[in-house]
């Protein structure tokens, strides 16, 4: 990612400036990449769907940055977490390859869309069934407890709609009983596909669920990058300190369709003017300027570099070969001798 100098000289402020900058640039990278993916989708170059994190990059990047895979931290992102994935350390090319069906991608074109992961680096390859990846992240923390890998934490993402699943409940409760160092980031973006939260839950704020699980909860304006960064950083510290699961609700608005096939006609224009309706990227850009942490020229330069980076990733993924069905093993088992292969008929 493009680097830039931080002008502030006060060390503490320099630290936050630097972190803010880093976060902003991941957000920008995610946004620009996803816009590119959307245009490839419209051009018919992407099979499957394209799901954007537009409007929730600040919340997503907050968790991604709070985790450190070098320390053994585990991350379970969902469909709108391109920014968090980048911050966690997933290479951009993995996203490009997965969307574009390159056989060199982490899922080898067997799985696509946003269903990628990297188990070795602690990045959970989500399946589609909402909520079902939470207990998988918990299981890694349980595994680490068994193997004595202390100090590692987990972070997992879910949407407002995903909180209605049985899997969400069972996993949260289990994490609470096991007092796991798990951050659960709920992006309340006011919609699950077309369904407004009024048809999804009846509590005032999803953070009201924390007490019922016996865990700590925080509810924030997720359009505010500083707040996101601080909240997740504190939550990570508390989780590492043995304070158990941390439920963080981020309030924001989905600024795009559910996927790129969806024009989101059901989201009224006023929503954007109301609380949490802003674009976190615009707000962060303003903040950078206001705090004098970056100039417009800096941002322009970053943008240009990022555009180049995105261009490189997508065009190199596009040049890469797709899968060859005749090279495929067509076996789902790792134990070769027990694999039956095709039907015997």
């Amino acid at each position, binding site marked *: 990612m493009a680097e830039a100098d931080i002008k502030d000289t006060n060390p503490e402020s320099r630290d936050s400036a630097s972190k803010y900058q880093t976060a902003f640039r991941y957000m920008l990278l995610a946004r620009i990449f996803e816009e590119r993916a959307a245009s490839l989708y419209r051009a018919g170059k*992407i*099979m*499957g*769907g394209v799901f954007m994190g537009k409007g929730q990059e600040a919340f997503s990047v907050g968790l991604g940055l709070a985790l450190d895979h070098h320390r053994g931290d585990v991350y379970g992102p969902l469909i709108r977490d391109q920014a968090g994935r980048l911050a966690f350390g997933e290479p951009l090319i993995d996203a490009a390859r997965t969307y574009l*069906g390159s056989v060199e991608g982490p*899922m080898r*074109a*067997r*799985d*696509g*869309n946003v*269903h990628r992961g990297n188990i070795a680096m602690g990045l959970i390859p989500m*399946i*589609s*069934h*909402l909520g079902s990846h939470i207990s998988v992240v918990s299981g890694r923390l349980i595994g680490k407890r068994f193997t004595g890998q202390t100090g590692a934490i987990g972070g997992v993402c879910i949407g407002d*709609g*995903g909180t*209605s*699943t*049985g*899997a969400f409940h069972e996993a949260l409760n289990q994490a609470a009983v096991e007092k796991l160092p798990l951050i659960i980031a709920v992006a309340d973006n006011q919609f*699950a*596909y*077309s*369904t407004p939260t009024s*048809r*999804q*839950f009846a509590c005032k704020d999803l953070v009201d669920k924390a007490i019922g699980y016996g865990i700590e909860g925080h509810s924030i304006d997720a359009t505010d990058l500083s707040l996101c960064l601080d909240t997740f950083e504190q939550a990570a510290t508390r989780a590492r300190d043995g304070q158990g699961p941390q439920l963080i609700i981020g309030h924001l608005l989905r600024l795009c369709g559910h996927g790129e096939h969806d024009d989101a006609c*059901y989201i009224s224009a006023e929503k954007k003017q109301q609380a949490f309706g802003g674009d976190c990227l615009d707000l962060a850009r303003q903040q950078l300027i206001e705090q004098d942490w970056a100039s417009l020229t800096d941002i322009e330069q970053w943008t240009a570099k990022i555009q180049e980076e995105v261009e490189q990733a997508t065009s190199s993924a596009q040049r890469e070969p*797709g*899968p*060859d*069905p005749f090279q*495929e093993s*067509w*076996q*789902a088992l790792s134990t070769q001798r027990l*694999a*039956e*292969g*095709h*039907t015997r*008929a």
Partner: protein
Amino acid sequence: MSITYLEAIQAAQDRALAQNESVYIYGQDVGSFGGAFKATKNLAAKYPGRVIDAPISEDAMVGSAIGATAEGMRPVLEMQFADFSTVAINQICNQAATQFWRTGVPCPITVRLPSGGTEGGGPFHSQSMEAIYAQYPGLIVLTPATVEDAYSMLLEAIAIDDPVVFCEHKYLYYHLKADQLPSKNLPVGKARIARAGKHATVVTYSAMVHEALRAAEALEEEGWQIEIVDLRSVKPIDTDTVLASVARTGRLLCVSEAFPWGGVNAEVIARVTAEGFHLLDAPPKRLNAKDTPIPFHPDLWKTHRPASQSIAASLRELLRY
């Protein structure tokens, strides 16, 4: 006028809602949005309060529908994708399917499963789950292959007093068109001869009927007349129609898009070999998807599922025997 398979499903629900006050529709985004595939388009506006958005709670969706039947309602549930019904399987197979047998009170729910593979669908948006449900006593499992069947069988499913798992194929949603909706049709439980022939029988259902038809055309050029039986319903199976066809042709190939172990193909072969062993001039064959999850990439997906070419190749082998 021309109507697609998907429009037929919408029309059947429209008609069911119009005809019977007890019918309501429940599922994620089925309300004003009209559903992920638009199978309930316009219905919420036309039938206020009777087409209802559900939270992402498949277990509770089905459980509540079961309860509503005891008050005389006939709920139609839409799963957003068949694959997501795994989290409702307990309510479908243990609660709904056992109720009549346990209590004598029927449980008329219809669970719509947008099923089967499409390009880029991948492992969790492509599954064919009919044979999972068919194993449980107390369920009826339908797999319409035509626009006409999508319409008439869905209407019939809603009218049936037992729980029906309605496996509609997403690949057919837009690909398949008919001139008009049928005014009458074969009843649920009867298979249909989709193409008459005399050299071999293909027993299949859902999207694979069309692959088989294409294969039959290819073989016709080679001088073979292939009969194709469209099961329409995989539980019950119309064994008599299948046996009658095998009696005519002496050769059987079963084709299904589902995973290879067990399933409809194995069940049909077990029935035919038990009751029509002497009718067979060659060992029965079957063709399924491969024994891996369903691949995302179209090039893999096309190889994973049976298609006209692989069906034709199997048929050639069968005819060579």
